[in-house]
């Protein structure tokens, strides 16, 4: 341990209000990102991953997105109650975000360099000339020649655009980088380049990263800690060793069984049956019970406790520990 907590999320509950229903997107999430570490937040579509990232930055869609309870602590301040003006100072400065789709994250009619310089000017006491110089340095840092400052997004390939977005996010030396599926839209060889880049830059600027992904392979290659999220709840949480070597929640195990593996041959995949529950109408007890091969009657009635299997390795399952290994 020893490392300080940079970001702490406590008992976060977020809902979206629609005309005819309430969508329970995040249901009591606790998370910690330590200084200098990468935390992988793993889950499928609709699990609430992006909602958590947006809540940290307070960029939930308004007025539908509502934080019902909980707190987010960053460097001693509670972000949810922070004045909007103070929040604006943090955004893009101390906390930056890389979005999934680089094709839509950039302004198509502004030169890429200017887009980076804009962020720098906003948060630093610099002249325009200095900001331009810094933007060029940032481009060089992510492997794009500084002379391409004057080009427009359409002149870049997908991988290059994502580099530009990363350069922009890191331009103000953030303490925390929220990376929301940063490589999902990219080809594997480009993905490898971008992940390496994020890892290297993290070391260089001493930032922490919250990496949101659905790809366990990406997590294995980049994260020190892992949180598995299902239907708005963290179902398993621990160090990368704990979660990968001893996956203990049935959902985590199901995820591992669902992916075809390259370094072993299995005759057949074992998919998780069924679908994620409807977020407007969540089950009372364990939200995974319906799809779980171990579920007993109590699982459907009781809210499962957080069981600590060993220090730092938590599993939200009634049968954790008693189910026997695998």
């Amino acid at each position, binding site marked *: 341990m020893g490392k300080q907590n940079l970001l702490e999320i406590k008992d976060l509950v977020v809902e979206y209000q629609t005309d005819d229903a309430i969508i329970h997107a995040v249901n009591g999430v606790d998370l910690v990102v330590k200084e200098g570490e990468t935390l992988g937040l793993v889950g499928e579509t609709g699990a609430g991953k992006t909602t958590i990232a947006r809540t940290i930055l307070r960029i939930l869609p308004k007025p539908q997105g509502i934080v019902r309870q909980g707190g987010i602590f960053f460097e001693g301040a509670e972000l949810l109650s922070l004045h909007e003006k103070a929040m604006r100072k943090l955004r893009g400065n101390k906390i930056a975000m890389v979005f999934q789709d680089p094709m839509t994250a950039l302004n198509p009619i502004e030169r890429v360099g200017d887009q980076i310089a804009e962020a720098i000017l906003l948060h630093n006491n610099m002249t325009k000339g200095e900001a331009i110089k810094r933007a060029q340095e940032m481009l060089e840092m992510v492997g794009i020649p500084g002379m391409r400052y004057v080009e427009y997004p359409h002149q870049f390939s997908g991988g290059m655009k994502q580099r530009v977005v990363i350069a922009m996010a890191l331009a103000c030396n953030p303490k925390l980088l929220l990376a929301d599926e940063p490589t999902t839209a990219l080809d594997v060889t480009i993905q*490898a380049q971008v992940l390496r880049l994020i890892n290297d830059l993290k070391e260089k600027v001493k930032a922490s990263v919250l990496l949101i992904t*659905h790809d366990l392979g990406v997590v294995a290659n980049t994260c020190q800690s892992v949180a598995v999220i299902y239907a708005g709840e963290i179902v398993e949480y621990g160090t990368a060793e704990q979660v990968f070597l001893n996956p203990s929640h049935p959902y985590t195990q199901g995820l591992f069984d669902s*992916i075809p593996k390259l370094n072993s041959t299995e005759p057949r995949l074992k998919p998780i049956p069924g679908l994620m529950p409807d977020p407007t109408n969540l089950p009372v007890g364990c939200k995974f019970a319906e799809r779980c091969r171990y579920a007993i009657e109590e699982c459907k009635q009781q809210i499962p406790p957080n069981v600590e299997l060993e220090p730092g390795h938590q599993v939200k399952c009634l049968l954790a520990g008693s189910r026997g290994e695998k």
Partner: protein
Amino acid sequence: MSTLLETKNLKVYFKTGRGMLHAVDDVSFKLEEGKILGLVGESGCGKSTLGRAVLHLLEPTAGQIFYDGKDITYPTRSELRKLRREMQIIFQDPYSSLNPRMSVSATISEPLKLHGGLDKKEIEERTKALMETVGLAERFWGAYPHELDGGRRQRIGIARALALNPRFIVCDEPVSALDVSIQAQILNLLLDLREQRNLTYMFITHDLSVVKYISDEIMVMYLGQVVEKTISDELFSNTLHPYSKALLSAIPIPDIRFKSQLIPIEGEITSPIEPEPGCRFMVRCPYATEACTQPQVLEEIRPNHFVSCCRCREINHL
């Protein structure tokens, strides 16, 4: 076993403002009936174009396509209509490939009505049977695509493709838009269907772990050309082409004990417009020499293992 599909020196070029774009350039392969041929490569390598060309959704520029022993490169209208029953496609995106204004049953039964000769009752029965085959509950009979999740939508696409009892299906990234737990369900369904109906698939994907799981044979494509072609296991245990090596090493393995030996390739795919005659991977290849500026041929390096690289033997110490 007999060859169901074969191409000889197939080329598909597109005219652009800056010259000819070589989307598929001189591709030859044979696909046996009942087998699954995986087609992998990164965006822009021509894998989808190849899939569409063999289905005549795109017209080939040169070369030949044979189906069931017959030359179908330039089919007549009635031949094409017959081929459409036998050859089907499952698309990548179940969100945009379905008509939002058609219900599940209407979507699945449409091919039966068009190609048919069946009466209303028979169509209804067949549609029900198809829904059962792909695992769609009957309560979705009148549902519309927007009411369903991605996995179920993809099942509609599969049921529709199966409606006319095809022998050959092009699966163009059928699971890329799906979550992993659903992806496994669909992959297993496709494998079961092949078993039951002796189907032949051309399976297009950029996901190498998926292609390894499902394919009997794999072709790796780069900028319109096949760079390596062999049996699935052989490709992964004995990767020979420098591009395939880099591609395979770039896949993140979901196992923290596995230390990846990334073979970095710098830069990105070059332009497919009026490419130089030599090896197309040359500019990114760590082994490139003068010899690579000459046109490359696909050569059988090991039994049933074809590689298009003049330095292949040297690099792999064969």
